[in-house]
């Protein structure tokens, strides 16, 4: 039988550093007075408490992050940019879909897509420059000013990626009959060996969800840092 107090190990490390001794003492004292069912209930309550402590810690980190001015700036830029991209994706995939033989690799689309990426990059650079300007005006210390652009760019990149991923997930599922006619999707599906195109498309999106936000955060951070440096120059 597991000793209920051993479940204190489930709490976050920072929490345990402060409270582990007193909580262990309490659980040991209560365990000694209770029967098997009582000890089981203590264990359940502790596990629930540990989960709550983890959630609390996450919330605290998020609050601290969002309390950071450059990050808040980046989140705003990312949200506006992401919404704009989501609208463009809806228009180009659902309202005005490409013909069944048209591919993203066709020269005219390559130019359009290239321009779109340049615009995204420019906005991320602008997010970095704007964040640096704001913290400079506020008179923050040098370290905070130095990192403002990168932080804003990274936050903008992550938020942009998350909004785009959600938009693609919604569009590809809600308008599956339309998007499943796209040339590139049909070719990729035919080469995949999968039997369900919807499952294949969703798997691609979910795989992207594991990588794209991180990559967008790093790239956004670099572009934001460039914006910060340009602002300094």
């Amino acid at each position, binding site marked *: 039988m597991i000793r209920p107090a051993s479940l204190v190990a489930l709490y976050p490390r920072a*929490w345990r550093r402060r*409270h582990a*001794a*007193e*909580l*262990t*003492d*309490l*659980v040991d*004292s*209560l365990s000694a007075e209770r029967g098997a069912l009582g000890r089981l*209930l*203590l264990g*359940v*309550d*502790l*596990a*629930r*408490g*540990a989960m*709550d*402590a983890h959630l*609390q810690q996450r919330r605290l980190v998020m609050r601290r992050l969002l309390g950071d001015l450059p990050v808040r700036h980046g989140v705003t830029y990312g949200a506006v940019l992401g919404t704009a991209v989501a609208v463009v994706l809806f228009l180009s995939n659902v309202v005005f879909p490409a013909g069944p033989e048209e591919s993203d690799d066709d020269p005219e689309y390559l130019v359009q897509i290239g321009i779109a990426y340049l615009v995204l990059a420019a906005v991320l650079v602008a997010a970095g420059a704007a964040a640096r300007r704001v913290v400079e005006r506020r008179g923050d210390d040098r370290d905070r000013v130095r990192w403002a652009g990168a932080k804003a760019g990274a936050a903008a990149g992550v938020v942009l990626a998350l909004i785009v991923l959600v938009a693609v997930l919604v569009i590809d599922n809600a308008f599956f009959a339309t998007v499943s006619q796209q040339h590139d999707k049909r070719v990729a599906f035919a080469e995949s060996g999968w039997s369900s195109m919807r499952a294949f498309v969703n798997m691609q999106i979910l795989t992207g969800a594991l990588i794209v936000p991180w990559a967008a955060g790093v790239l956004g951070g670099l572009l934001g840092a460039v914006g910060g440096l340009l602002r300094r120059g």
Partner: protein
Amino acid sequence: MTVEGLGRFADPAVLILSSLAGGPKHGYALVKDVEEFAGVRLGPGTLYGALGRLESRGLVEALDAEERRRPYRLTAEGAAALRSYLEHAGAVARTGLGRLAAGT
């Protein structure tokens, strides 16, 4: 600062504040006191979840640990929050009881 917005920890929070109104207590003493005056068995996870929230809101404060036990005490803000909550609850209870009595 009030005890509102504590979600599922609101009830344990009121019990803890009421217990600490009688003087500082460590975890075990709190559990036993609440069990005695309210008939509620607070689990250790629930107790520390509520204590953490009360401490971050400045309604209770931790004292120096005595070996493995750390006592907590009510702050002035905590006393005010508890008083305000209990006065409101008392008014609701009086109204409800009065209406029940009038209806029977």
